[in-house]
């Protein structure tokens, strides 16, 4: 069974997913960060593939991506770094990145490679559902790689249902109409939006992301969803402290309030 499905079967609450940009702050820390995250009790990891033009991202992830590219990160190198990752960790792993670099690598070749290495899912924020269903769903299904889609506050009920029907992993609920790392804390209208999504009783579990940076926003998100995703706040934390072990441990225990 795909590790993402196995995770959600086993655990229904307080799932913590962490995003980091591969190649940032240092080029060759990808495997180390993954191992530390698993050891610190995180449930799911999103490995960001840097892109020169990340339009859905705020300043923190833009800067981490620029730094990673400057350090020399490429899709090929990332796959090299992850080649034997399955000998070291069992946590579900997701690759997250924009469509163009994946398209240049070749979508089928990319998905095959993910499957060989033991990657479980892919998030491509600028790949429309329509294009995915038309061209790529078969490829993803053949290799048992999950494609994870986002919904936002403006996503219509009908489209939320369509995304749910086309998914078989989890739904990434974007907390506000904003780029990553912009807003912190939740307003009343965000809370009622979370409640609206929760009330759908979707077949897929849901994780809330964007704007989650501390124990209070994490706990609040977990009240309305199966868990939460943290990106920018973690990226900031690992750039501030060169010691991966202490920065990860400190950050995760602060999020969990332990």
């Amino acid at each position, binding site marked *: 069974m795909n590790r993402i499905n196995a995770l959600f079967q086993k655990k229904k609450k307080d799932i913590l997913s962490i995003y980091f940009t591969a190649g940032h702050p240092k080029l060759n820390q990808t495997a180390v960060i993954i191992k530390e995250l698993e050891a610190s009790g995180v449930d799911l990891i999103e490995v960001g593939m840097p*892109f*020169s*033009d*990340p*339009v*859905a*991202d*705020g*300043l923190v992830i*833009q800067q981490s991506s*620029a730094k990673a*590219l400057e350090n020399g990160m*490429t*899709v*090929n190198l990332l796959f090299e770094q992850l080649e034997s990752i399955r000998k070291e960790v069992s946590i579900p792993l997701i690759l997250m990145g*924009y*469509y*163009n*670099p*994946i*398209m*240049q*690598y070749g979508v089928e070749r990319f998905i095959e490679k993910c499957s060989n290495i033991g990657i479980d899912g892919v998030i491509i*924020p*600028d*790949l*429309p559902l329509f*294009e995915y269903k038309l061209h790529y769903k078969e490829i993803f299904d053949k290799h048992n790689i999950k494609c994870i*889609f*986002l*919904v*936002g506050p*403006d*996503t*219509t009920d009908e*489209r939320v249902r369509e995304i749910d029907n086309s998914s078989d992993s989890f739904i990434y609920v*974007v907390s506000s*109409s*904003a*780029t990553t790392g*912009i807003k912190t804390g939740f307003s009343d209208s965000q809370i009622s939006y979370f409640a609206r999504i929760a009330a759908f009783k979707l077949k897929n579990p849901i994780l809330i992301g964007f704007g989650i940076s501390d124990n209070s926003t994490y706990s609040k998100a977990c009240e309305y969803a199966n868990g939460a995703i943290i990106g920018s706040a973690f990226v900031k934390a690992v750039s501030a402290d060169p010691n991966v072990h202490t920065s990860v441990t400190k950050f995760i225990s602060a999020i969990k309030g332990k």
Partner: protein
Amino acid sequence: MKYQVDERGYYGNFGGAYIPELLFKNIETLKDNYLKIIESDSFQKEYKRLLQQYVGRPTPLYPAKRLSEKYNTNIFLKREDLTHTGAHKINNTIGQILIAKALGKTRIIAETGAGQHGVATATVCALMGMECVVYMGKIDVERQMPNVRKMQMLGAKVEPVISGSMTLKDATNEAIRDWINNAENTFYIIGSVVGPHPYPDMVARLQSVISEEIKVQLKELTGKDKPDYIIACVGGGSNAAGAYYHFVEDESVKLISVEAAGHGVDSGESAATTVLGKVGVIHSSKTLLMQTDDGQIIEPYSISAGLDYPGIGPFHAHLFETKRATVLNATDKEALTAAFMLTKLEGIIPALESSHALAALEKIKFQKDDVVVVSLSGRGDKDMETYLKYIDTYK
């Protein structure tokens, strides 16, 4: 209609809308409404009135006598340089701001490179009394200060962009980010035939007034229904799209698109996208773009700030792939030579962008009775600093 956009938003293999989910509703709304709005009587009436009374249309189709003698053919210049704000850009911004109003939007954002589209947007925002924010790469802000001041005087807020290479592509990224963060009240006026569907088609339709006028004017001047050649420069490609629009389905009209070769296509400093680019996705559109093997977008180079865009509009990628258009390129030097030549022969100082189209006159063997239309997309005021730098070399 071989060369028009299809119902999925594609020109052949190019186009589409590779947008993050957070923009989906906004783009859907625009897609569902833009044709209805553009084709409505109230829009047409107001758009045409403003083009005539405010922009100064129709712009002349000028038979360039001395230029024609030089090339031993019949050259006509479509004088977009004579519009209010000095380039074809305003045809589009007038149209888009009317569409924004029809959709109930209250805030306008735009990207700009050299500042021409920024000025054209700030101008129509002043005209309509709407809030305006223009994103401009920090490097462009510094090298195009007169346009920055114009935008500010017109009441726009100019936001210097410090991400990426701090030029046009990054300004576009930042405008898209603003749009994601303010989707409810904000309309994004894109300056070229680029971006997600329906932008390329919408902008082409708004610029199509150029070829609509050429058709009428050419008939009056020559008795002919169509030219043998239309020559236009292509960065994103909006003036070319407008100049080609009503002739594109008639394959007897030769379309010549001219890209900026910078220091030469093999020099590593160029913006000749069809030569150096590969199919990819930039600013939500599948098209030809300059990129590394790893799919990272490359910052192009041209002496002309309006042509140094790493992609081309999907319409032009389609015309290139189907060989409907012939794509040539002109180096910085060739463009400068053409600019000084036109100034000397006809007393018209062209924009550096338009000078690339003029440079192509050297590269084509015309017949004596050919009718050649060159899109003179803008005037050279904004480029005086560059021209003065080279005046001793080229005059």
